[in-house]
């Protein structure tokens, strides 16, 4: 245990995702050594993010305005909605530059163990959008784990009576890699999801 302020900082850092006690200690002592302005800049960035960033009223992505930049962009195709769990998933898909539709961020996945049901997610808002906006296709891009799959299945059940096409992202092999480097689970799924050539 260290003295007051240092220990407080270590405790706070230790609460961050992916930061263990050892890393928290290392970061804390790094912060102790850096110049005052550098530390101030970090503190300001955290404060500013909390003050100015909110969630888009339409898609629940992070935003500096009432609606996020993607929702405001007229070049985006309003007929396609990509449903993701977290704002960082939007970023991941944006990096592909393949997708020109809009998003809907659920804020997580259904997980009864963690007390997360459909009511805790932005699903009611999604249904409202499907009713109000000219949506033709929903691409469900929840994580390919048990909770993400259950959420995808829940959404497709909910939307059966709506006039909208529901699709799910494929899971398969990483591109540009060697087959023998793929882990067995991914390779197994890629086998199950194989497709006809030339079809």
């Amino acid at each position, binding site marked *: 245990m260290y003295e007051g302020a240092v220990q407080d900082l270590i405790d706070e850092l230790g609460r961050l995702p992916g930061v263990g006690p050892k890393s928290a200690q290392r970061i804390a002592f790094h912060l102790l050594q850096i110049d005052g302005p550098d530390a101030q800049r970090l503190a300001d960035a955290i404060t500013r993010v909390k003050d100015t960033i909110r969630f888009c009223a339409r898609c629940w992505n992070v935003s500096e305005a009432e609606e996020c930049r993607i929702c405001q962009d007229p070049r985006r195709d309003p007929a396609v909605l990509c449903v993701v769990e977290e704002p960082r998933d939007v970023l991941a898909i944006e990096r592909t530059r393949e997708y020109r539709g809009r998003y809907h961020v659920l804020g997580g996945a259904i997980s*009864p163990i963690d007390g997360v049901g459909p009511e805790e997610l932005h699903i009611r808002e999604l249904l409202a959008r499907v009713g109000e906006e000219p949506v033709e296709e929903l691409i469900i891009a929840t994580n390919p784990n048990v909770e993400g799959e259950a959420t995808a299945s829940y959404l497709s059940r909910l939307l059966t009576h709506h006039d909208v096409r529901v699709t799910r992202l494929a899971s398969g092999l990483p591109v540009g890699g060697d087959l023998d480097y793929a882990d067995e689970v991914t390779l*197994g799924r890629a086998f199950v999801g194989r497709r006809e050539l030339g079809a």
Partner: protein
Amino acid sequence: MQLRHLELVDVRSYDRASLDLPVGATVLVGPNAQGKTNLLEAVQRVATGGSHRVAGDGPLVRVGEEVGLIRCELETDVGRRRRVEVEIGTGRRTRTRVDGQDVRRAAEAIGVLRAVLFAPEDLTIVRGDPGDRRRFLDELLSQRRPAFAAARADYDRALRQRNQLLKRSRHLSGSASEAAAVTIAAWTEQLVTLGSQLLAARIAAVRTLAGPVDRCYRDLADRPETVGVRYRSSAGQVVDELLEEADQGPVPAVAPLAQALAGAYQEVAGEERARGVTLVGPHRDEVELTIGALPAKGYASHGEAWSLALALKLATFDVLAEVGDRPVVLLDDVFAELDTTRRDRLAAACERFDQVLVTAAVEADVPLSGHRIDVRLVDGVTRLEPRTRELPS
């Protein structure tokens, strides 16, 4: 496959031990509580990723130490030299290296060294709960196909989620109950998808096992009775009918099993809602063992139960050897439990294994020729003393 060299650093009762292992039989001899089983346990840990005695790596590290190291050098059936090192720690993450390279996930190292262990604890496969038999089957499948272990873990997770949801929505009524039904259905779909994969794999494994188990049992038992291994699904008649077909025809595909499972969930939906727990699925299935016309559990004599448990493990060897390398066989304290006739029969059965490591408190109990190593505890630390002269067979 052969284990050529084994090194233990701060593992259980070992501070530092290094051992060259020959082809054929090696018998570790010494009184009880000297560290014989610890050595087999370490080999088993490297082969399967777990110990047969405890859950978790903590107890495998020598008391008072923080890190233990198990290093195995092996030679595959095609003569390739490989090395697996597992650094186990109390609390910290394990570090596993295969051929000098760190692996991304520990599961990747499972099955590099292939081993089949038989220990007195395995009597529970015959005498214990259905869960013990499912575990036996799932461990075999995980060593054979790494994807199975992943599907099994996902199934367990989905099951926990669904049970939690059923428990919470037990006292709902009206529209809240209807809303919960949709969420439950989403989880049912996960159980159906994952469960049908487990089912198909287990049914196939039971089929492959049945022949070798029967053969191995006849090799060991006094009365050559027919041994049966059958899979019994908790999902009721539809799956049972598919299983009947499976006994003759090809193993049922995943799709019809999924359909049957989905039907079973529909049938018990009301009861599941009322009781707040998942009532059907691979987590409630049974692997039925019979000797002659009688179920082994409850009817088998002590000797019969031992022979059957042993036969199941020896058959595991055949099933694993079907795909990939022939496993190393580990027999922990087995001979002492058998009568003279069965000892001789087990020794004869061991002849088809490339390499077998045996522990025994009394050397005369083991009618196997081969290498002998004396195991004794000196000042709280296990010492291995290989004998230079081999005993005549």
